[in-house]
């Protein structure tokens, strides 16, 4: 049969381009076997996982400049995906390193093997998600990463909060993906295909009813919205972030958000915008639904709620959870303009967001190792008790606020520039007002660290030198990229073209 031969050929060709993901699968299996065979060694699977991530990174590097559709058009390899995959891999690697320093994880070290293995599983899911161009593939990838993350969120299962977090996460996640798959089924019925390219062609050539398309689109966006914790799909975020181990909280706030934004951008671009690439980077919208406004509405809701509620938090992890919601709002602003400039801004922002957010969470983890609390009050005098850590946390928080001379400022600058370039001045105004609000709760922590008069000032906190080095490996780039950011901007501009199959 001719047809089957063609499929086989396509498969063989695709497998050749599937190498980074394959490397992760193999790592996953090897790590699992190693975990059974060498039960004694504490970090062996961690090292295997790191090696696997590095190898996957190298293989990913070899895909530079490749534009490819494979597995019956289910997966796409392009520069945009490559950028996001780098972020996913890099943050996974950093998280594994963080995990070596985590006391709460080591309380249950007999199961650490599973932990690292599941991180690899989650990474694999995210890599798939970033490249998915088929709705079922998107669903499959979301589930792959989610299932791993449900377990990881409740990894310290003896802790009540952790098990509660994982219950809330699994129910919320399953419902969201259920809603999404229902939306997918409607989309399938409307357009007759699950493939984004085919859907795009159908939308370009046929008139589709407004309401069903809106329903299915919104239901699918609900699935993405849950991943990136956009309001009103964010409710799980604070509870899960607070309950989960800090490493996993950090991981969820960066990598899974990156994958969510990547698939969201790819979904919008590939599905709802004309396949004719315009040279000036603007996209041409198909159909009657103005997705710009839908996403802009989500953006406003998300950043406003995130920032306003963050004002009241007294737990550092919970505060950072709301802050990550707010950051999702800023990123959604850039998504809402839906042109190449916006994509580039998202990429730039994400790279910097990865550095500063992971850094902040690592400091929280280190402090929690010593003080056994995540209360913001406990940070009083930290600037004197451990000057280096205090300085680093200050850098991260200033960067999260988006003040110069830090990388966060540059990220925000590009986001706002893209929004203003697209003519959405009102959106930019809301964004700036939100940034002002966010200043308050970030600076509150800094004030606690330096300006609060406390007795324990002289009571020094001693951190291991390697941990401090890791903190500064994140803090120094946060500063340097605040001053010299051209390479990242160029890289993002190189990566902003989402491959749409022509």
């Amino acid at each position, binding site marked *: 049969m001719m047809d089957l031969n063609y499929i086989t050929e396509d498969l063989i060709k695709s497998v050749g381009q599937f190498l980074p993901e394959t490397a992760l699968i193999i790592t996953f299996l090897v790590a699992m076997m190693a975990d059974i065979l060498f039960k004694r060694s504490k970090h062996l699977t961690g090292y295997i996982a790191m090696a696997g991530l590095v190898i996957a990174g190298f293989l990913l590097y070899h895909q530079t400049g490749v534009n490819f559709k494979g597995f019956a058009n289910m997966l796409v390899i392009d520069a945009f995906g490559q950028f996001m995959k780098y972020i996913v891999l890099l943050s996974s690697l950093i998280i594994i390193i963080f995990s070596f320093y985590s006391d709460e994880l080591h309380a249950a070290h007999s199961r650490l093997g599973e932990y690292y293995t599941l991180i690899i599983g989650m990474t694999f899911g995210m890599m798939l998600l970033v490249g998915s161009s088929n709705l079922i593939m998107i669903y499959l990838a979301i589930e792959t990463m989610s299932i791993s993350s449900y377990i990881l969120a409740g990894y310290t299962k003896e802790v009540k909060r952790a098990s509660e977090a994982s219950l809330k996460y699994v129910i919320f996640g399953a419902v969201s993906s259920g809603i999404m798959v229902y939306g997918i089924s409607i989309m399938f019925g409307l357009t007759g295909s699950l493939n984004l390219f085919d859907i795009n062609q159908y939308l370009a050539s046929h008139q589709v009813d407004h309401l069903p398309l809106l329903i299915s689109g919104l239901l699918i966006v609900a699935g993405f919205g849950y991943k990136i914790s956009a309001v009103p799909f964010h409710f799980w975020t604070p509870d899960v972030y607070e309950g989960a181990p800090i490493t996993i909280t950090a991981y969820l706030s960066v990598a899974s958000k990156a994958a969510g934004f990547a698939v969201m951008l790819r979904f919008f671009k590939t599905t709802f915008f004309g396949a004719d690439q315009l040279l000036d980077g603007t996209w041409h919208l198909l159909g009657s639904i103005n997705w710009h406004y839908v996403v802009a509405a989500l953006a406003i809701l998300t950043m406003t709620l995130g920032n306003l509620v963050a004002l009241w938090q007294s737990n550092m992890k919970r505060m950072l959870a709301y802050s990550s919601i707010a950051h999702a709002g800023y990123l959604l602003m850039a998504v809402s303009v839906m042109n190449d400039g916006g994509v580039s801004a998202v990429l730039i922002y994400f790279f910097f967001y990865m550095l500063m957010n992971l850094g902040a969470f690592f400091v929280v983890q280190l402090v929690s190792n010593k003080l056994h609390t995540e209360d913001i009050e406990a940070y009083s005098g930290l600037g004197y008790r451990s000057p280096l850590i205090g300085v680093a946390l200050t850098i991260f928080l200033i960067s999260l606020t988006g003040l110069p001379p830090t990388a966060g400022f540059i990220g925000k600058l590009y986001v706002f*520039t893209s929004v203003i370039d697209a003519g959405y001045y009102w959106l930019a105004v809301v964004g700036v007002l939100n940034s002002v609000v966010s200043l308050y709760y970030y600076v509150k922590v800094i004030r606690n660290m330096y300006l609060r008069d406390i007795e324990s000032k002289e009571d020094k906190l001693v951190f291991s030198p390697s941990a401090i080095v890791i903190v500064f490996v994140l803090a120094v780039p946060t500063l340097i990229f605040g001053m010299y950011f*051209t390479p990242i901007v160029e890289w993002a501009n190189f990566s902003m073209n989402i491959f749409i199959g022509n």
Partner: protein
Amino acid sequence: MTHDAVLLLSIIILLTPLLSFLINVFFGGKLGKISGIIGTSILGIDFVMAIVVAFTKLVTYPDIHTIQTRFEWISLGPIKVVIGYGIDNIAAMMLIVVTLISFLVHLFSTEYMSDDRRYPKFYAYLGLFTFSMLGIVIANNFLLMYMFWELVGISSYLLIGFWYEKNSASNAGKKAFITNRIGDLGFFTGIMILYMTYGTFMFDEVFAGISSGVMPFNSPTFLTLAGIGIFLGAMGKSAQWPLHVWLPDAMEGPTPVSALIHAATMVAAGVYLVAKVFAMFTADALTFIAAIGTITAFVSATIAITQVDFKKVLAYSTVSQLGFMIMSLGVGGYTNGFFHLVTHAWFKAALFLAAGSVIHAMHHAMHHMHDHHTDPQDINNMGGLRKTMPWTYRTFLFVTLALSGVPLTSGFLSKDGLLAGTLAYANLTGGWHWIIPVMGFAAAGMTAFYMFRLTIVAFHGEPKTKIASHTHENKSVILIPLIVLSVLSLWFFYSPTPIDGSKGWVHRLVVQPASAVPAAYQWSFLLPEHAGEASPAMHAEGEGHEAAATEELHHEAQPAAHATTHAYLNKFQEESHHFHYIAMFLSVLIAGGAIGLAFMIYQYKVISADKLEARLKFLHTFSLNKWYFDELYQATVIAGTVALSKMLSWFDTYIVDGLVNLSAYITRGFSFITGLFDNHVIDGAVNLIANTTGFVGARLRKVQTGHIQTYLVFVLVGLLVLLYYFSINF
């Protein structure tokens, strides 16, 4: 080595001292004495790399003007900031000067500073300083130059005030910093004028812009002003009159610091800056530069004659020599000015290190005798050190000869060329410009005089105190840097003949850059000889002109190197060659006379110093009190500022307040009413916004009930609301 390798290596050279800084600042407490060894060895490695880079540049690529790279730093739509770094011939030579002296100072300090309890911090600061200085050296644009310029300012502030427990030290640090800031203000203004006009910070692009005929604000006056602004920065760093007052005070810093910063590197930064941007100075700007340099050279030489503090003499001598360099650049003697910078760096560093050696020995002797009151730096407490410290004496004597400009030394080669340049300049311009060579020669004579006064009083004769007789020669760690630096002051390193510096490699490699300034605003004798009239056409080429011009230069530079064919770059060089022998004769005569005078007064006491002092009472006091500059500033600038502020305060208190009070009475009635408005309406509005934000936040968080099912209801409701809203509106 390829260009890329050179560039890579130079960035490593730049960053290596930073590594030393980081190590010592973060782990200094744990390292203790090892920090010195670490710092020294890091600088040693740095020096070796600098040699590699410098030799590659000077031997393999001598004719390429600058090996450089540039990259976009900031790109915000139309605003682009391009920066970069590069190595040209003078940068290559400076790399060696900075790293070698820094290395020797590091080495010297392992012994000199060994008793200090902030030993690691000292090395950290030294590393930071070396880093910033190297940054200045390899910058090829104004922006980076300015940034490192400020960094140098900060690190020197830290080093001068290193013994901040001493009030005088911390004051000196402040004085240095503030004085430098005044100069930097000018520097910054100059940079801004240029950036506004040419839209770039890169040296070569600015020069190309100037030579294409574009003028700031369409007026050559502003180009002159930009040049003078930048030169103001150089005046601050290089301690030029009238901003020279900080340098003698900066002697409060540890002596190795004085050797590194206030003799060889940082103060040379100003000269280096002027050399780097030499192409952009107009004739008027150059005249200003020459005048400032001359005054500096003369004034500080007169002050140095009467000082009794060992280091202060050297400090004023440094100021004077820097004046020479600036003067030389100002009259158009680019090569000579830079040559003097290099040779001066070696022997002045040696002089300071020797001073350090003496002071160290005096300290030890005092410590030994439990004497804590005698001033170990006063030369009247010394004497006879020749016998107790023979190696220090020998090196000191040799570099003193070099500084005085005695033949067979490097100082002779450079100072002779420099003075010939001033003669040529005066001859070409005429009129009152003859003052420049006259004052130059006078200063040169005084240099020889005060240096020998210092040598004789401190080293010769009988010990004037018991302390001096109990001094001992220092360890070899202290002597090795001295010897190395004095050897480098021998003539044959620079020229095959001991009497003519222009035959050496320095003159071949350090080629005066073609002036970018259009011919109308430049001295005609500084324009290329054969193309004197044709140059405007050449300038019209615009972009890429600089490269073309330098290439052309090298064609001309080749014959100039072989002095047999009398083809000179420009009229000035030809003229200075003519004046070479006259200058040599004059300077040897003057220096010899001055040295003889010094011996007669202080060694053989043929002329009584005291009587001379009494006879020239007025001049002596004037010189001893440093021309009353500090008092002058105290009385004018500082007192003026204070008086002004007092006056303003008085004005405030009586006039303004009176008026205010008056109107206050009138408005009180209104304000009572408006106050009510303010309190209840305006403040209310502000508070309302803040409280509303908080209130809304507080309400919103109530949504987070903790019940997963409630969350899901909210999700569904949210979805329905979105659906409803967008199905209706769009």
